């Protein structure tokens, strides 16, 4: 690397310029270098381990391999598990300590909406406290769903989109195998 050179484009040449957007470049860079802060509080943590380990390799493939246990060095806050009222101030402070740009992924139903813990001690969804970018429902979510969520987040980062997104199931893997409803007037 030497001194900066000034490049002058000659307008008389017909093919002498290229266009791009700085935002797009930054978005592309950011979406492939998500340093994660795993805020793991409950049983979804087991699924998180499975996701990050070799069988699914769900984070390294997407440039989100390196965990950073300092909020100042991380971009993506994974909230994995139930958040109790007692933990809420901690979570909020960690979110506030993260540097912009920052994103939050709610891993599992408890982090998304509290799940079945609808009681005196549980925060019914982290979006009551901090903004959340991607919700991955499931108890726990399948690794595919989390990878879906991560890719959804990458899309949103690339587009500069800050609206929250929810991972939806493509199809029920057990459809046709398990019959959940028994009706008397079924054709069988």
């Amino acid at each position, binding site marked *: 690397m030497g001194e900066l050179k000034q490049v002058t484009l000659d307008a008389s040449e017909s093919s002498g310029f290229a266009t791009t957007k700085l935002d797009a470049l930054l978005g592309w860079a950011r979406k492939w270098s998500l340093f994660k802060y795993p805020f793991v509080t409950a049983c979804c943590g087991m699924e998180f381990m499975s996701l990050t380990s070799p069988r699914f390799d769900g984070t390294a493939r997407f440039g989100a391999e390196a965990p950073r246990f300092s909020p100042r060095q991380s971009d993506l806050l994974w909230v994995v598990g139930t958040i109790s*009222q*007692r933990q*809420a*101030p901690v979570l*909020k402070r960690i979110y506030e300590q993260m540097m912009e740009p920052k994103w939050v992924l709610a891993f599992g139903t408890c982090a*998304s*909406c*509290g*799940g*079945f*813990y*609808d*009681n*005196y*001690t549980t*925060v*019914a*969804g982290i*979006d*009551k*406290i*901090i*903004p959340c970018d991607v*919700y991955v*429902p499931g108890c726990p979510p399948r690794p595919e769903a989390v990878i879906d969520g991560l890719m959804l987040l990458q899309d949103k980062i690339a587009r500069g989109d800050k*609206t*929250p997104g*929810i991972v939806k199931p493509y199809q029920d893997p057990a459809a046709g195998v398990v019959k959940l409803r028994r009706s008397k007037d079924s054709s069988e």
Partner: protein
Amino acid sequence: MSERVLEVLKAKFGDAVLRTHSQFGDDTAIVDPKSWKAVCRFLRDDPQMSFDMFTDLCGVDFPDRNPRIEVVLHLYSTQRRHRVRLKCAVGDEDMGGCEVDSICDLWVGASWFERETYDLVGVTFKGHPDLRRILMYPEFEGHPLLKDYPADRTQPLVPYRTEAEAGLPLGKLAPFRDDEGMPFPHRVHNAREFGDS
């Protein structure tokens, strides 16, 4: 199996043992709260009893009874291989006189259980060296496992974001409706105010 324990207790303490019953192999003695500690000390120290292992201690709220709170203690003897369940009922309708002697100088392990019972049900254990909340936070008001604690009352430490601030509805997410996720039939059971109304 350990009905003998109940027999000994009845013979030794007489009227202080209010009732006993045995079903499904569980032997229970309901004792007068005044002699709670004496019974416990006897159960631990008597060579016939030698209950050397503290198993569990908790509180149960029966809002229709008076006294309403039942303190339940489970003990096991590793030498004699027998167990016993000890109960005492304390506290009137307004939780007055809801106190019983601490037994954490008999079994050290009882300390955290007494703190839990104090935290969730509101039983005061006299003589406990450090009776603070153990599960809930110090700012919490009331005792959440009392039946008249409203089932949908939360006491957030962090003020919740408003929907305007968040820009999206903060109710339940898609698969859940607003009325779902609450397994209790008594969403507000005999709602009693806890100060902030």
